């Protein structure tokens, strides 16, 4: 089996071969092939949005995706949540010496395919190799550049009491999919990661952009943490309805098994939308037209308050939804 060698990162013949035989074969942007020190982009009309994110997911392959796909989705979704249309991506790999080249290729293909599927060009890249043991297989950093959509005015300052909170699909899939293959807690599950780029989904609701106030992808910390951030920055409360919160039965079951709350599990293909109450039902219907929004639900609303998140339970009780402290750890108590 061929493996990544330290020499692949030294800038010499090995490095050139890796670029030519692997990266250039799968990334098609013409600028990239010229192997210049900097990619020159055509001029972009409008304001720019830039975001960067590093991906260290353990394990790199999980049900429903891999670190390559994830590194595109994460950055694309951050641009979308920022009200921008994603255009370009740069990709930086840190590889551990000894990583099988076959595995690297699967990840690169997955990354390239995902970028292509959402219309984003990979325009620049870099590779470094660190000695065995100094990294865990590989890490990927992507930087995304997008054009700010002039039709959108997003931000906590636009959110008003009475606005509806919509979740684009069931919560917690990615968290359970990744936890299921962790050492020590391993179990088999039908749950697959929801990892997906959401630019197209959000584009489908463009007729309702004037009613859209706030967008955020609930990744780490899940829906619970993301809504706490909203409540705090808007200085308003959010009231969720437990019976409306979409969670797949198998995710709920696995979360129970591990002593975790789906509200705090990470998602990689979901968006929380705050929209004017009058448009909520129409936005939900529009989201449901798209395969990635089929199970979208209005999960609650913004209310006057002081920056807290609440949940009305199925029995009609009201309890707080706190900011989580630390990573969700499987527990038995």
């Amino acid at each position, binding site marked *: 089996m061929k493996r990544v060698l330290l020499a692949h990162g030294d800038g010499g013949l090995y490095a050139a071969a890796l670029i030519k035989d692997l990266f250039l074969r799968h990334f098609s942007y013409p600028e990239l092939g010229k192997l210049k020190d900097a990619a020159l982009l055509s001029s972009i009309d409008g304001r720019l949005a830039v975001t960067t994110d590093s991906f260290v997911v353990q394990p790199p392959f999980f049900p429903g995706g891999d670190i390559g796909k994830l590194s595109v989705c994460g950055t694309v979704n951050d641009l979308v949540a920022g009200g921008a249309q994603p255009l370009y991506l740069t990709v930086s790999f840190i590889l551990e010496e000894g990583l099988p080249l076959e595995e690297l290729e699967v990840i690169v293909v997955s990354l390239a395919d995902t970028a292509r599927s959402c219309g984003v060009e990979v325009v620049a890249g870099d590779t470094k190799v660190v000695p065995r043991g100094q990294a865990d297989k590989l890490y990927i950093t992507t930087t995304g550049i997008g054009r700010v959509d002039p039709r959108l005015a997003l931000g906590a300052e636009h959110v008003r009491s009475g606005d509806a909170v919509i979740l684009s699909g069931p919560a917690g899939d990615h968290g359970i999919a990744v936890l299921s293959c962790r*050492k*020590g*807690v391993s*179990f088999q599950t039908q749950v697959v990661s929801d990892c997906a780029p959401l630019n197209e989904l959000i584009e489908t609701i463009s007729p309702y952009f004037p009613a859209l106030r706030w967008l955020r992808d609930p990744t780490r910390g899940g829906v619970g943490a993301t809504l706490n951030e909203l409540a705090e920055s808007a200085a308003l*409360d959010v*009231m969720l309805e437990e019976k409306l919160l979409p*969670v797949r*039965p198998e995710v*709920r079951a696995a979360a129970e098994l*591990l*002593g975790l*709350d789906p509200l705090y599990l990470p998602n990689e293909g979901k968006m929380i939308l705050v929209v004017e109450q009058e448009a909520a039902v129409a936005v939900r219907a529009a989201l449901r037209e798209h395969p990635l929004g089929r199970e979208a639900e209005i999960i609650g609303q913004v*209310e*006057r*308050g*002081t*920056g*807290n998140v*609440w*949940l*009305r*339970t*199925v*029995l*009609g*009780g*009201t*309890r*707080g939804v*706190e900011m989580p*402290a*630390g990573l969700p*750890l*499987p*527990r*038995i*108590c």
Partner: protein
Amino acid sequence: MLSGTELAQAQQLLALIKKKLTGPLSIMEVCGTHTTAISKYGLRPLLEPLRLLSGPGCPVCVTAAVDLDRMIALAGTGAIVATFGDLLRVPGSETSLEQAQAEGADIRIVYSPLDALAIAADNPKRPVVFLGVGFETTAPAMALAVKQARERDLSNFYLYSCLKTVVPALHALLAAPHGLDGLLLPGHVSSVIGRRAQDFVASLYGVPAAVVGFGERDILLGIAAVLRMIEEGTPGVVNAYPHVVREEGNLLAQKLLAEVFDTAAAEWRGFGMIPESGLVLKTEFASHDAALHFDLPHASVLREQDPCRCGDVLRGAISPLDCALFADRCLPLTPLGPCMVSSEGACAAYYRYDRKKGVAPA
């Protein structure tokens, strides 16, 4: 999530209870998983003026400071330390397992002690210690792991046992002045020890109690059963979780526990020493006993933070909301006591779900 039938039953029970409940009564949920569930289901405000008080059934919360220190010290010995996620962030006198991990300790979160056994088999040259915290529900898995370690000659597998048993704690709780009108008994401990073993709660102390499951419907059923006994003045110990709990419990599990463990006096936070409430490995399993194999600190430098009232919380004397430190100086990231640290600790549950912050919308 509740099935449709269960939801209907839960609503029916809630209505019954509300109708019957006139004065303030105090019922203790002994088990920490109950505490968390009750808060998470939003039941406390719904059931007012009923006061639901937390009890000693949170294994991490009642673990003595010296035991926490010794478990954290184990992580510094170079051994692989396997444990449940529950323990990772709990602070000892000076540090936590999470800190120790950042400093290079090899800590593995597992779902079962039997997974730790597999780690021992994979790493024959390194000692593997399982940190054994829990009650009768969890103890059988640890007993089985130790027994299998001996059978499979995995001499590098060790258990550090802080295991405790619930019955002596109930005696300690009820023998002292308490002001409790009823108890909700732990359903999963009861699946091992059986309902009958807890009859003394009513027969000896005159306190009505129910063995209770963990869903919304199950908890309301238990409360309704206890309220009925209070109203009738006929204390008993009712099995409100009959599809899981038997009269005699699981005899094989009890036999296994007796085969592997001796009982010994154990220190409980909030209660002090309780006779025969700890489970320690029998001498024939001494070669797997981490307490004997490793050189561990004998005393803790940890002093209970003077104003911390975890002890009162664990005895049901106060609600976390009555503690002046709660949500003020004692917070999830800077906890002053174990009830705020453990994910099923009463203070952590109240902080997450029941804290009065601003005004809850109607």
